[in-house]
């Protein structure tokens, strides 16, 4: 409804860097996002997720490097692109004296593709208090209004910065339903930055992880899950296990005759050959996003 792919990529960054005086917020970021899909942007506090989203939306200009959003350089973004862009900020900014209703009307007037039916549905779904002034709302309600303002014009690129952290679980699940619906109807690209990994793992099909301003991971979610596993190794012959030296083993904890190995499956041998070679029994277990996150971002020893 609102996307006409005149350029194949919704976002493209080459060697992006952003410095705030001495603080390096982003460094050497190279990314490209195509149409469609939900990208989960994960990382620790201060990793640069909000900065990246701000740069994508053209609000913050990079110190060096190039980036293009919806086919245009981010400092030249104009109404044709901005009306196809939606940004739900972490600390939303509104015209505080307006009531929610009035503010929706006000914002709607700037977007020719504003969908009033969707607005009505969202207001009902998320339980938004429309008659109250924005200055009086709680944090959760403000976030709901921010979501409304970012989504109702059916953007081609929707950026969400921690949109659900203040929502109650019911509102969160409705919000996820909504994102998926948006995905289904239009060729919308969604980038969602969140600490709530449970929510991201339900919807994302691509994961980008930032650490200290750098991209440490940029992969499809399914591929990511399938590249790591945990092997629980027990000695067959009752002997104590000595540390394993295979390079695919990223982490190991050994205690007598049992060991837990975190393995990178790309370089790993077949389970059977490993078991035979070391005369052990191996039980495999897949790792979920939270565990992989901890693996990637807690220490510097692993890079995808």
């Amino acid at each position: 409804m609102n996307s006409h792919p005149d350029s194949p990529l919704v976002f493209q960054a080459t060697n992006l860097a952003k410095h705030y005086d001495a603080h390096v917020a982003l460094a050497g970021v190279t990314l490209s996002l195509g149409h469609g899909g939900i990208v989960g942007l994960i990382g620790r506090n201060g990793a640069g997720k909000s900065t990246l989203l701000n740069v994508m939306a053209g609000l913050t200009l990079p110190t060096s490097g190039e980036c293009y959003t919806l086919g245009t350089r981010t400092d030249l973004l104009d109404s044709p692109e901005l009306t196809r862009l939606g940004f739900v900020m972490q600390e939303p900014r509104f015209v505080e004296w307006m009531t929610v209703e009035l503010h929706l009307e006000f914002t709607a007037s700037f977007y020719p593709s504003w969908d009033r039916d969707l607005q009505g549905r969202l207001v009902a779904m998320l339980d938004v208090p429309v008659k109250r002034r924005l200055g009086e709302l709680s944090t959760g309600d403000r976030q709901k209004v921010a979501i409304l303002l970012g989504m109702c014009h059916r953007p081609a690129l929707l950026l969400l910065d921690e949109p659900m952290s203040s929502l109650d679980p019911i509102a969160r699940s409705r919000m996820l339903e909504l994102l998926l619906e948006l995905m289904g109807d239009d060729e919308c690209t969604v980038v969602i930055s969140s600490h709530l990994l449970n929510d991201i793992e339900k919807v994302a099909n691509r994961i980008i992880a930032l650490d200290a301003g750098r991209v440490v991971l940029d992969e499809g979610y399914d591929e990511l899950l399938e590249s790591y596993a945990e092997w629980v190794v027990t000695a067959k012959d009752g002997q104590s296990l000595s540390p394993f030296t295979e390079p695919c083993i990223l982490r190991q904890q050994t205690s007598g005759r049992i060991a837990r190995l975190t393995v990178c499956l790309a370089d790993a041998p077949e389970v059977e050959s490993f078991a035979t070679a070391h005369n052990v029994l191996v039980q495999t277990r897949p790792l979920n996003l939270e565990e992989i996150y901890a693996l990637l971002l807690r220490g510097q020893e692993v890079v995808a």
Partner: protein
Amino acid sequence: MPPLLVINSHNGVPAYRQIMDQIKLQIDSGVLMVGDEMASTRALAAELQLNPMTVSKAYALLERDGVLERRRGQTLVVRQRSTHEVDESRLTHLRQRLREAADMASQLGVSRTEAMRLFREMLNPPKS
């Protein structure tokens, strides 16, 4: 109609794989019969609360594996497979479970004969 699948998004197994495995199991155990129409990508995605791209990936792979086929251009139906294919598929499900059982037998030091006797008992429960 959408098959009743249960997807656990938290256990580390990719959703598309869970969909594929469960559909294959349903087909092999007769819950889904040859010629049955599969739910559309959008409907299944909405029912399971998943990204539509995940569902379409699962469907595409099932099609590639010859489990589903496309009829009349749009709808996916369960494909008629050769007896050999069907048998292989059925045994694959069982093979996975038996491997776990075999590993456990080995770990517990249960002898081969004991293990076989136990399995036979499981298959033919005695009438009490």
